[in-house]
């Protein structure tokens, strides 16, 4: 059929089964928005900032497992969205971000709201396109969705000049995708898998090192089974929280800079690292030369470039972790889980020696308590997003995650302002679950305009502000490594968060006691509207334990022991 480029965008989104689009209109994308006005196949959520549109699409994608879609205009619309693209790229989140561009005839003339969008997005997308004629649109849009979701997922950016959205051409979306140059390797080499299993059978102190790739590949079930069949203890990266349930006996905990003592010691003492969908990030490994120093390394990853990038893999396996885990399961009968009994005991001793905990030694609420309390009250019934900072690490440490896709946070890029819009996307994807965003008094101000979106679109996100009147994580580093010179991190002058929420039509609570917190959370859940719960917490609390940047995992700064909790 002959339709306009703008209509093609709509038809393609429908064909891809998209039910929610996040976006913000503007001059160059108006033809597409005109078509959105005329359709009712999917909902459009108007955010109040393009960055938030992309973060919301990320949150939506993380929870639903589908490709997130954001629609934005040229120039500043696009540059606002760049942070979201970079965030999705670092965390391998499948997105298709469609931007308007000035007409072809004006490209390169420094026209109004013109920017070299594909030039900018090249370094923070898996792939990008500038569409120069409408007849290319069906192929490009189809490729965009395919590339975003396959292999190592990631954001794809499609930039469409305004005249191309007006141009009429043939629309046929049925053609098969034929990308000779892009064929992700999804099946692991059977011989390598066999060798890896033999290495596991021989190892005395193996550890599963579980990464976010497991969640991307929907492989949590297979991995759980593999862990239980082999009886090998496992550590999770920040991005892998929820792959194993918090109460799983074989889960040691999170590893890395703010990982548990037990996890980091297990990694330091192991003789075989079994890395699944993890990329040996510097926040995980600490000092590379000391990381798992006496261990062999099995590394399963869909991205060949991740393998041996930082840590040399003795058993490299390129493939989709779901497929590989299935094959490993088939060979798992050769592994005798009883053999690792004393190793499991050693790991349990590490945990007993320095458990993940905190001291209740002040009149003020401890931020960790808030996270634990929400876990007790809502548990698996809530999806948990975070912004970036101390609250993020406390959430990763203390929330009882029990399922994959429950925890949504900005890992690789560490984007302050991510949490609230992402939580709206989460709520849009999973309306039946409470959407909690743990945030800080620093982070929340970076996208608080989204209160308007959440109120208007009835996305009742509960933002729990762990308010210490500090840019807490930077303050912590200044305390520990800059001789307490708290340069520009004191946020004593803050808005009235209760009034702020109310000004947008939401609800605000100021909380100074535990009883008030319980009451506020209960009320916010019941009222089911967007909320700010501003919790006054201990100002000088640090995230512990901690591996100083570039330090060795086994050299952690630990919480000082006290008799209280």
């Amino acid at each position, binding site marked *: 059929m002959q339709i306009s480029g703008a209509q093609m965008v709509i038809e393609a989104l429908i064909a891809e089964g998209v039910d929610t689009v996040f976006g913000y209109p503007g001059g160059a994308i108006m033809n597409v928005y005109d078509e959105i006005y005329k359709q009712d196949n999917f909902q459009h959520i108007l955010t109040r900032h393009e960055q938030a549109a992309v973060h919301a699409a990320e949150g939506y994608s993380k929870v639903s497992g589908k490709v997130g879609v954001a629609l934005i205009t040229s120039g500043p619309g696009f540059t606002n969205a760049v942070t979201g693209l970079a965030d999705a790229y670092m965390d391998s989140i499948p997105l298709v971000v469609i931007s308007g561009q000035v007409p072809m005839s004006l490209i390169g003339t420094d026209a109004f709201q013109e920017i070299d969008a*594909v*030039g900018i997005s*090249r*370094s923070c997308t*898996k*792939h990008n396109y*500038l569409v120069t004629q409408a007849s290319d649109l069906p192929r490009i849009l189809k490729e965009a969705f395919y*590339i975003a979701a396959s292999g190592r997922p990631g954001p794809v950016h499609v930039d469409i000049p305004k005249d191309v959205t007006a141009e009429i051409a043939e629309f046929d979306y049925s053609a098969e995708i034929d*990308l*000779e*140059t*892009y064929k992700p390797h999804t099946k692991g080499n059977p011989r390598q898998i066999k060798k890896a299993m033999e290495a596991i059978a021989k190892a005395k102190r193996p550890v599963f090192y579980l990464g976010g790739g497991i969640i991307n590949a929907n492989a949590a079930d297979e991995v759980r089974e593999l862990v239980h069949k082999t009886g090998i203890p496992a550590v999770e990266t920040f991005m892998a929280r929820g792959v194993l349930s918090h109460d799983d006996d074989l889960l040691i905990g999170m590893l890395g800079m703010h990982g548990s003592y037990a996890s980091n010691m297990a990694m330091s003492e192991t003789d075989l690292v079994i890395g699944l969908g993890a990329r040996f990030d510097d926040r995980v490994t600490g000092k590379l*030369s000391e990381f798992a120093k006496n261990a062999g390394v099995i590394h399963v990853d869909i*991205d*060949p*470039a991740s393998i*041996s*990038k930082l840590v040399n893999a003795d058993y490299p396996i390129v493939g989709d972790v779901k497929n590989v885990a299935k094959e490993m399961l088939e060979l798992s009968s050769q592994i005798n889980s009883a053999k690792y009994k004393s190793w499991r005991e050693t790991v349990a001793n590490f945990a007993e020696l320095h458990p993940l905990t905190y001291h209740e030694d002040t009149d003020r609420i401890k931020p960790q308590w808030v996270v634990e309390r929400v876990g007790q009250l809502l548990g698996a019934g809530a999806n948990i997003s975070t912004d970036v900072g101390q609250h993020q690490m406390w959430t990763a440490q203390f929330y009882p995650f029990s399922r994959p896709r429950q925890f949504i946070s900005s890992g690789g890029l560490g984007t302050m302002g991510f949490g609230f819009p992402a939580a709206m996307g989460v709520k849009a994807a999973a309306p039946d679950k409470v959407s909690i965003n743990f945030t800080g008094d620093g982070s929340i101000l970076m996208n608080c305009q989204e209160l308007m979106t959440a109120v208007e679109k009835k996305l009742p996100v509960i933002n729990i502000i762990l308010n210490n009147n500090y840019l807490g994580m930077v303050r912590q580093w200044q305390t520990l490594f800059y001789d307490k010179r708290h340069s520009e991190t004191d946020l004593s002058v803050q808005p009235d968060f209760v009034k702020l929420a109310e000004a947008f039509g939401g609800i605000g609570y100021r909380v100074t006691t535990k009883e008030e917190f319980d009451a506020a959370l209960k009320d916010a859940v019941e009222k089911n509207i967007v909320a700010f719960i501003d919790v006054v917490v201990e100002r000088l609390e640090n995230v512990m334990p901690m591996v100083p940047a570039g330090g060795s995992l086994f050299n952690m700064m630990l919480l000082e022991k006290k008799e209280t909790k």
Partner: protein
Amino acid sequence: MIEASERRVISVIVVNESSVLSRITDLFSARGYNITSLTVAPIPESKYSRLTIVTSGSVRVIEQITKQLHKLIPVLRVYEHADLVEKEMAMIKFPVSENITDINTLCEAYNGKIVNVGENVIIAMVADEPKRVENFLSIIKRYNPKEIVRSGAVALER
């Protein structure tokens, strides 16, 4: 620990489409890799182009370069050459007052010749292994070259 850095020649076959060259060069600059020379031209009777990149780095860096290049969607193949034939061309402009016979003889020794003689300048070209082109360029300094242009290397696996 500083790993030994070596000169390497990498060939990349890419779909001949707009902005593909910037994807390649962006990758090098974004990841802090070094490009010594880069040549690119379409492969006859195909939709592909071939890039020849001369770079340097440790074994680990070179492995990352080839893997990261291969991740780019329009990249069909990446060859890291071990056994190859390599050629580079250079053109040199001399004042017409220099000894044209000497220059011609030298050029012939480096698979070249004088290609143009004008009122004021002589232009010579040589095509040889990059290392030999360098030798040639240092030898002809005595004939006061006014301008030198090098093509960058092209290479084929043996």
